[in-house]
């Protein structure tokens, strides 16, 4: 029996953008895309794709659908999960969908999942690197009434359930969850695989399935934000570093310790 997995994925500005190129347009409260730095699929979402692929590697018959909500999708970025080995890419692409808050995003995802489902597993990254919240998968579990396990670093299919390791501050928990469930995946799972040439060729031939809001029975009126963004800005840092210079590097190390003592820090 095929295990149907949907992986939630978001297009985000590359979090490795150098700080000097990270700019905000305060008149629209939005990030100005850095020149020559294309957007990427959120890193933790790629960990989730990797988690799904590992289930396939371990012998399970899985179908992997990647689902994203947004606008101005850059296909080179969004097709990466396909190149890694995912089967389908479903994009809800409409004006303003890149600016939804978590509650609105959950509404859109729930509508697609209702239409395209049922799925056995819904996987998401632990959080997105733009708004750093990690609310969407948790909210989706509430709205769909499904069991939820967050911060999963390992998963294995075990008949009609999944065996999981969940990261906690000082170790991990072993957890058994039923199917269907919603899981969020964390980077402790391990690096997402690099697409190979064959994967890239296959991905380039695949067409994403594109849905509009209307296709899933929603209008923008259904998607009013719960949190109203008033201001987005880059904070000023006015820290002044005191560089300690000795005669050589070893001497600098010694002088650093003495300076910290002088400041009563050690």
């Amino acid at each position, binding site marked *: 029996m095929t295990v149907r997995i949907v992986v939630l994925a978001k297009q985000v*500005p590359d979090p490795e953008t150098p700080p000097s190129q990270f700019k*905000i347009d305060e008149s629209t*409260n939005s*990030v100005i895309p850095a020149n020559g730095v294309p957007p990427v699929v959120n890193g933790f979402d790629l960990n989730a794709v990797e988690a799904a692929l590992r289930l396939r590697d371990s012998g399970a018959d899985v179908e992997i659908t990647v689902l994203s909500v947004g606008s101005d999708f850059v296909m080179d970025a969004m097709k990466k999960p396909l190149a890694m080995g995912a089967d389908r890419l479903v994009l809800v692409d409409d004006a303003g969908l890149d600016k939804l808050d978590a*509650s609105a995003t959950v509404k859109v995802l729930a509508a697609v999942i209702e239409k395209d489902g049922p799925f056995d597993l819904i996987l998401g990254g632990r959080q997105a690197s733009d*708004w*750093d919240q*990690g*609310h969407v998968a948790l*909210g989706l*579990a*509430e*709205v769909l009434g499904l*069991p*939820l*396990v*967050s*911060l999963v670093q390992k998963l294995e299919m075990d008949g009609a359930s999944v065996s999981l390791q*969940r990261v*906690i*501050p*000082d*170790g*991990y*928990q*072993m*957890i*058994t969850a*039923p199917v269907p*469930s919603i899981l969020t995946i*964390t980077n*402790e799972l391990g690096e997402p695989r690099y697409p190979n040439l064959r994967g890239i060729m296959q991905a380039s031939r695949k067409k994403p399935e594109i849905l509009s809001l209307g296709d899933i029975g929603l209008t923008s009126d259904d998607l009013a934000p*719960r*949190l*109203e*963004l*008033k*201001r*987005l*800005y*880059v*904070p000023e*840092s006015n*820290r002044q*570093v*005191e*560089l*300690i*210079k000795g005669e050589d*590097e*070893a*001497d600098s*190390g*010694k002088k*650093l*310790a*003495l300076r*910290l003592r002088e*400041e009563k*820090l050690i």
Partner: protein
Amino acid sequence: MTSVLLVAEIDDQGAISQTTLQAVTAANGLTSAEITAVVAGEATEPVTSLAVGKIVTISAIDDADIGVYDQATTDIAALVSSTKPDIVVFGKSDFGSIVGARLAFRSDSAFASDCIEISNADGTVKITRPVYGGSALAEFEISSTPAIVTLRAGAYEPDGETGSPAVEAFASNERASRTVSVTDTVSEARDGVRLEDANFVVSGGRGLGGPEPFSVLADLAQALDGAVGASRAACDAGWIDHSHQVGLTGKSVSPDVYIAIGISGASQHMAGCSSSRAIVAINKDADSNIFKEARFGVVGDWEKVLPSFLATVRELKA
């Protein structure tokens, strides 16, 4: 008058958690009325000196719920729907992040996590939270009730106030369906002080080049009676366990001295240590971002700087 519900968390020692004590300060600043604290979990230390007007205890939450929080969410949601607070405040933790989000979706209300500032003006709640890994700050307004928030560790200081609240028990008669079960917990052994509580933290990053140098960092941490931290790059490389990771998706620390060695100072790393009293950097790249965050620094190769630093620290401590 604004009514505020504080969700208090019990730490693994059975005491009210530090993030909760910080959240009390923030919660008391939101209203002139007395606040209510709901204590989820079994405390071994008395909770009755908390600076709040009333304490509600929920005891249905047991060990089996930890990490899943199905019953905690159910009970706190029941309390929220019967007492109708305007603002619900959590400290940001594993517990707060999960229960806060689920509560918000269950009660169809607004949720802002990891806030560094919160205020309340005539029923409009304003919050500030770091976004884009800390590269930017976002200010939001919430006008629906309840506004549910979690506060970043270190954003507020415990104010040392105490109170003598009345204590009552609350039990929802709804049992969460326990479909997810925790079968075991595996904890990383720790010697010495907890990373989150340490006054000195010595952290290493990709610049260390491998796992072995972490033993030198451990020697330094031991000399200072501190703890060892790491960047995500060092943890992802497998050089040290992820329980040492400091940052946005790791631990939040606010020691007196945070020593960053071979760490570039990415915003996501700084998110976990920027409230330290003094940041000290050792990095061979003078243009590295860490020098924009540090108070003291040495531009140099850690392999040459660290041994004499450690030796001098040991002499000073002797």
